């Protein structure tokens, strides 16, 4: 029997980073499983893609870390155990469309891990969400690198972006019916990034993960809440109907980004007050990019933009919590109201379109230039 010295405290909670990462992995695999069943049913190239996309993405991410560890003469097994590259790989795989070329995916996965994470010093030191970096690489660098034998019809976001984002009530109904209505969109039976479509499943997983203290519920709640509240008000004022706000939350990976990417503790502020402010910026940027920029989906960009603000937000909230309570409560409330106001203002500046008329216009243009 030996008496050892130990620096206090002498007991620890059962919550551990390992368990957090394993539960996150399980949740991502569940999202993938849903898509697996959907695309397997479509057979052929779809079935091949849905299996190969995560394998390539995770494979390249892990391989990059292994080579990095070998290059710096680190213990490979130990490095991988404390670095969790497969999480980035899985998230990246779930944010790409089914017709993404595996070549583009492999390059992006490498960029995500190497430039998104390792050059900053590895797990825990990265500034940007690595998976978002990979996703943006595909979006900007490999936009045309699509498989020709896998036809994916336009996603709701690209379609409505072509229509100027704001439709009148009958136009919105006609538009939604094309994707099987709001209910079908909630269940995810439409084309989009392979893991982003089933909003209901993602929200349920988000609630379970929050309950298990794997992620901070405030981040997805405020993000989705702000986008929903802001766009619903826009929809009501502009006469697009009540479902307009719901549509904005259901499409374009808002739920997936909110639950699996925005919540990454490494890249968001480390206090609840800071995280809420961070989330407000992300929600504002998402709507801004959607409505005003040339890109149809703003989630990934908004996450990266908010990531840039993390050190600034942390610097602002630096100090002792008890001393700051009063000031911080005012700041956070103000920022929430300002971002909501901003979202509404951007929405109000949009022109209302009539969906069938817009589509007819497109057909005429397409016909005119011989498409």
């Amino acid at each position: 029997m030996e008496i050892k010295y130990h620096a206090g405290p002498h007991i620890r909670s059962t919550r551990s980073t390992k368990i957090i990462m394993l539960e996150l992995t399980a949740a991502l695999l569940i999202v993938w499983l849903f898509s697996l069943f959907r695309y397997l049913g479509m057979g052929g190239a779809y079935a091949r893609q849905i299996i190969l996309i995560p394998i390539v993405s995770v494979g390249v991410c892990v391989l990059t870390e292994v080579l990095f560890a070998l290059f710096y003469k680190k213990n490979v097994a130990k490095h991988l155990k404390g670095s969790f590259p497969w999480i980035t790989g899985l998230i990246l795989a779930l944010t790409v469309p089914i017709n993404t070329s595996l070549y583009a995916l492999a390059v992006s996965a490498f960029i995500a891990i190497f430039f998104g994470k390792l050059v900053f010093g590895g797990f825990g030191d990265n500034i940007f969400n690595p998976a978002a970096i990979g996703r943006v690489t595909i979006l900007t660098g490999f936009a045309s690198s699509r498989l020709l034998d896998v036809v994916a019809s336009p996603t709701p976001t690209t379609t409505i972006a072509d229509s100027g984002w704001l439709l009148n009530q009958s136009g919105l109904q006609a538009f939604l019916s094309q994707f099987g209505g709001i209910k079908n969109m909630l269940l995810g039976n439409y084309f989009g990034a392979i893991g982003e479509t089933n909003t209901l499943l993602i929200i349920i997983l988000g609630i379970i993960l929050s309950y298990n203290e794997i992620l901070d519920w405030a981040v997805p709640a405020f993000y989705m809440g702000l986008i929903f509240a802001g766009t619903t008000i826009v929809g009501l004022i502009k006469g697009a109907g009540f479902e307009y706000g719901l549509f904005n939350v259901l499409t374009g990976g808002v739920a997936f980004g909110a639950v699996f990417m925005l919540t990454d503790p490494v890249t968001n502020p480390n206090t609840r007050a800071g995280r809420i402010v961070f989330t407000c910026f992300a929600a504002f940027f998402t709507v801004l990019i959607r409505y005003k920029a040339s890109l149809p989906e703003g989630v990934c960009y908004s996450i990266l933009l908010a990531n840039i603000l993390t050190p600034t937000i942390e610097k602002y909230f630096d100090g002792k919590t008890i001393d700051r309570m009063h000031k911080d409560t005012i700041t956070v409330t103000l920022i929430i109201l300002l971002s909501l106001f901003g979202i509404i203002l951007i929405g109000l500046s949009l022109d209302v379109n009539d969906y069938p008329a817009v589509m007819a216009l497109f057909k005429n243009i397409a016909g005119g230039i011989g498409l």
Partner: protein
Amino acid sequence: MSLLFGPMHQHIDGHKEVTAHNEIIHLDVPEIIGVALSHGNIEANILVKEGDHVKIGTKLAERDDGFYVPIFSPVSGTVKSIEKRPSTSLKPVMHAIIENDFREDTVELKTISEEASKEEIVEFIKQMGIIGCGGAGFPTYYKYQTDKCEHLLINAVECEPYITADARMIEEKSYYFKTGVRMLLKASGARDCIICIKEEKKDLIELIDLMFEGDKRVSVLKLKDLYPMGWERVMVYEALNAQYERFPIEIGAIITSATTAIYVGRATITGLPINEKIITVSGDAVKSPHNVLARVGTPFRNLIEACGGYTSDEVIVLSGGPMMGTSLRSDEVTTRPAVNAITVLTYMVYEEYPCIRCGACANNCPSGLRPVNIIQALKAKDFDRLQRLKVTDCVECGLCAYNCPSKIPVTENMRRAKRLLNARKQS
């Protein structure tokens, strides 16, 4: 505002059932007793020498440097030697090694009437060497030298896991407790007395209610089972909904632990100093956890052996509970008046992961500090930022490291930051 700032406390599995209801072991007084002749780490003036005959209550040493703390002999016998030995405060201090003659002779014991005045009671507490028995050992009389006290808070919370000594003391020595609380109420000059206790200790609450039936000044406040509910600031906030800068007397409150009240009552009635204590011997690496009534100066080993000894090959022996207890390098260390528990745990090495900046340390900090930022500042040796982050407000409750999912020794880093900042201030 827990929505914005986190809960600032945490429920921790108490493991109290293992010792809460079984019998109290009355440990035989050993042949050789080792009494630490210091108050905490502060050396006291030694008043005896080798070969002296001492009785129970003979003054062995006294600290007199603004704080007055006498140290009494817990047994009768002969002083064999005065030597430096390891103590519960890690630093070796002078000990009087006394050979017990088992005659249990006492000096002429002075008691005090319950009708005594405030000043007389405070002086009596001072002369009896009553110190805080909750663990810190602050001289009790010192807090009562005031006429600004409005509320007396009795701390019976016991928020550290495993420890049940306070609760068992109240049950066993309820008459002393009742007397002690009344004496302290008089000594403080307070209008009312609030006994703070965890809500799930229903039997004890009933007992205390019965004890003070008809006394309108005394009430019981039931607190939630959260850590660190027994820390003065948290308790004052829960009881009086007020915060203070440095000492609770600023808002008219005095806090004394339940066990201290019991020893005030015991001294009032019998005239005895703190010469024996109920100590909780518990933890996952001790065979049969019990509360043990032991004479002050008994080696830890005797208490652990009375509870069936160790069950693991590699253990940590703590003076105190598992959150704030001090890890000892030897079980030869002897008990002191401030010791309320011995916790024996299986030695564990935790696998450390990189910090994921989740902020769990900050969300749960009862002082409202941000350990995650403090560690950043520590690594960067940014002293201005350490000062701004008020690292010196840390009370080392251990919740940050307890909650860290990456198993980083956060509390140890906080201690390092405090030491570094203090060393810089001095130079």
